[in-house]
């Protein structure tokens, strides 16, 4: 293994450690915020944990109160809450008759698939479109693409979803209109995957296009800014082909702001996914959250808030590591 590779491994390892340390206060902070929000919910945590939809008798409520120590002062309650979380106990949902953690874990894969696919579409599409705009800056290609990306940037993704449903599902019949699999088809293997993908196309694109336009606009402006830097002039003075200069020097550097912003938008994408899931009846976390709101099932809602915040922290750590890999200037010391 060359010294160069060793160096970058050390750098990445250090970034991982530092990011984990940095995330710790956020984790604690989120726990406290969620706990405080729970306190604000009408009724006490026993009502919440038992499920507001009813069904819990006075006896169970009293038992719950005793178990969670709700007759204790608020600080003790916080400790009890944290103790529960430490044992992966996010509460119990009467409505679904299942533990909150199980509910979340059951829905999570679908949301992750949706978001991962949308993020991939958005980042790669954004880089390509942005690079194209930057390379043709000021020409009509750039103007047209800039306008289109500005319009997509200004359009609510759920409305894109609904409009694409009308066009591609209702009128053209190319894609199914909702769900993630054809119900009752009982498909397996390859056929199952194809079916799943056909269901995923519209939600992924509806969610991804908004972010694609963000990244495209960012890539364009970052590349134009970088293209003015001295080292790009150096690259041209070496006699490199313009395309090589763009890809190797300009786009390579533009990756840094794009990854940063992509990481920052993970939380926003989670929110967007919640709405898109509703539009396409996609059985993910977002729809679970909405159902929980309508059912006033706060234990589920808070569980999702907590869980998705942790997801964001995890993403931040990953982005930090990616940055450390991309940018040698991130210090070891």
């Amino acid at each position: 293994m060359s010294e160069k590779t060793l160096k970058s491994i050390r750098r990445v390892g250090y970034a991982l450690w530092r990011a984990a340390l940095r995330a710790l206060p956020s984790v604690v902070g989120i726990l406290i915020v969620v706990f405080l929000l729970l306190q604000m919910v009408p009724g006490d945590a026993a009502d919440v944990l038992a499920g507001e939809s009813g069904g819990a008798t006075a006896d169970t409520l009293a038992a719950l109160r005793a178990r969670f120590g709700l007759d204790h002062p608020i600080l003790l309650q916080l400790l009890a809450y944290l103790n529960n979380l430490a044992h992966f106990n996010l509460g119990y949902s009467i409505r679904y008759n299942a533990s909150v953690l199980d509910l979340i874990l059951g829905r999570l894969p679908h949301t992750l698939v949706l978001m991962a696919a949308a993020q991939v579409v958005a980042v790669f599409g954004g880089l390509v479109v942005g690079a194209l705009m930057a390379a043709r800056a000021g020409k009509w290609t750039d103007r047209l693409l800039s306008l289109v990306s500005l319009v997509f940037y200004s359009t609510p993704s759920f409305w894109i979803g609904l409009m694409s449903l009308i066009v591609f599902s209702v009128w053209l019949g190319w894609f199914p209109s909702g769900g993630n699999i054809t119900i009752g088809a009982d498909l397996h293997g390859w056929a199952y995957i194809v079916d799943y993908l056909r269901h995923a196309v519209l939600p992924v694109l509806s969610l991804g296009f908004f972010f694609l336009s963000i990244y495209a606009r960012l890539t364009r402006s970052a590349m134009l800014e970088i293209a003015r830097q001295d080292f790009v002039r150096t690259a041209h003075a070496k006699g490199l082909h313009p395309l090589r200069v763009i890809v190797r020097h300009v786009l390579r550097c533009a990756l840094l702001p794009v990854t940063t912003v992509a990481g920052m938008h993970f939380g926003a994408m989670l929110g967007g996914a919640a709405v898109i899931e509703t539009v396409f009846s996609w059985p993910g976390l977002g729809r679970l959250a909405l159902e929980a709101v309508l059912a006033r099932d706060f234990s589920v809602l808070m569980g999702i808030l907590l869980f998705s915040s942790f997801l964001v922290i995890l993403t931040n750590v990953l982005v930090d590591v990616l940055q450390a890999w991309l940018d040698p200037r991130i210090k070891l010391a």
Partner: protein
Amino acid sequence: MTKALLELDGLNIHFPTQHAVRDLSLTVGQGETLALVGESGCGKSATALAITRLLAPNARVGGRILLDGENLLDFSPARMRAVRGRAISMIFQEPMSSLNPVLSIGTQLGEVLLQHEQLSRQAARQRAIELLDTVRIPEPQRRIDDYPHNLSGGQRQRVMIAMAIACHPRLLIADEPTTALDVTVQASILELLDKLRRELSMGLLLITHDLGLVSQWADRVAVMFAGEKVEEAVAAKLFAHPEHAYTRRLLASSLHFDQELHYHEARLPDTSEDAEDLQAHVPTGVPAANEAVVASQAPLLKLEDVHVAYRTGEKEFFAVKDLSFEIRRGETLGLVGESGCGKSTLSKTILKLIPAHSGRILLEGQDITRLGESAFRPLRAKIQMVFQDPYGSLNPRHTVEDILGGVLRAHGVADKTERHRRIVETLGHVRLSAKSLNRYPHEFSGGQRQRIGIARALILRPALVICDEPVSALDVSIQAQVLNLLVDLKQELGLSYLFISHDLSVVRYISDRVLVMQDGRCVEQGDYRSIWNAPQHPYTRSLIEAVPGQSRVQVAAA
């Protein structure tokens, strides 16, 4: 002169708003160094970029650029790329930004080799290591995987040179290659360039504003002014017998270290364009302050064993170590040192913008080291500062009246008419008219802005003015103007200066006493005559030797 390698024939460069270069004709012979000299905006850098056809697309280039008799302007883009980096290479001013920060230097060096020569990656890497060795980068096998931020400014410029000579170019264009570097580094870079020019028998087109550099390294010199070549001659002849009026002005106003000019004896000729509004004073020297009087007074400012600590992350280091000196009334103390030697930290410490770690600072005998801000505020009027960058040191959103009036308000001048009177008076001192009052900084030239900065420092009638590189960001002719003004003001208002600069010629001109700093320590201080003629410390000697363009200073035996 051998046969012409590069010939510019009636070169014209138009930008949308400006005719940057007019009818420029030049030749560079093989193995020859031609210096292209002029102040900023004269079109010299545009010429350099035009030769390799790297100007922005909105520039129109006319005339002919002949390399070995072939017009580069007729070349296809592909053929032009084969010229760049192979037949003609370039080095730029800013080594900090001229290398890609996210690619290793090995990668960037290899890139040019792979582009122009049929080499395997392994062979290219080997060549790159050899090249780093050629430009005297220590431990090239190890440094090749470093990134630009791991290298010092001088080392980065060496890497740029390695990249430029990688394919043995016939012509090397160096655009202000050492302007951003410290003097001692400057000298070694130019030596390296000159050595490589001889070894590879390259033509060297050296673009610079620094006449000292030209006299030492160029065979011939072309002087440009406002886009036109005003004079071209063999270097020795140009310096001995400049023909064109602009050349004479340029030579006259630029400070040469070996001119031994001192403000006691002579003023600098002011050749700037706004010289007229300076109501030129009689250009005679200022009589030396009565030395008996100076000696009898208590020092205005006295530093005793001052240390200043800096924290970066976990580590603490001293930017200023064990520094003691004093400035007497009416005296100018010149402070010389290279970047990072702690001179700017020192000025901030004296102004109590950062705390001293230990030691004592005495202002007129009063210990101000541990004084609280509210107790110190009235004393602030006694020490003021002039900053380096005339663009960054003035708030772009305030008018001149806001800037100067704000200073008075901070020091309790509540009456508006009184403020106005003092503002107009101070503007008069720096030779600006009252018409400037309602204008914003961007409406002024660089020299005028620096005068506004001086007015801000003077309006409280300080006893001591700290000048932190006050002329480094200015063109040569403006430098002379500002230096003259400082000399006049010292006399008129009875000021003392702490004059900080990296430029030995400037310090030599303006100082009564000189202090040399290295790595936060004072290595030598003494009278202005003795320190230049009989430097004691090896570092002082190396600084003096590194000044370009001197007729090999006769360093007195220590």
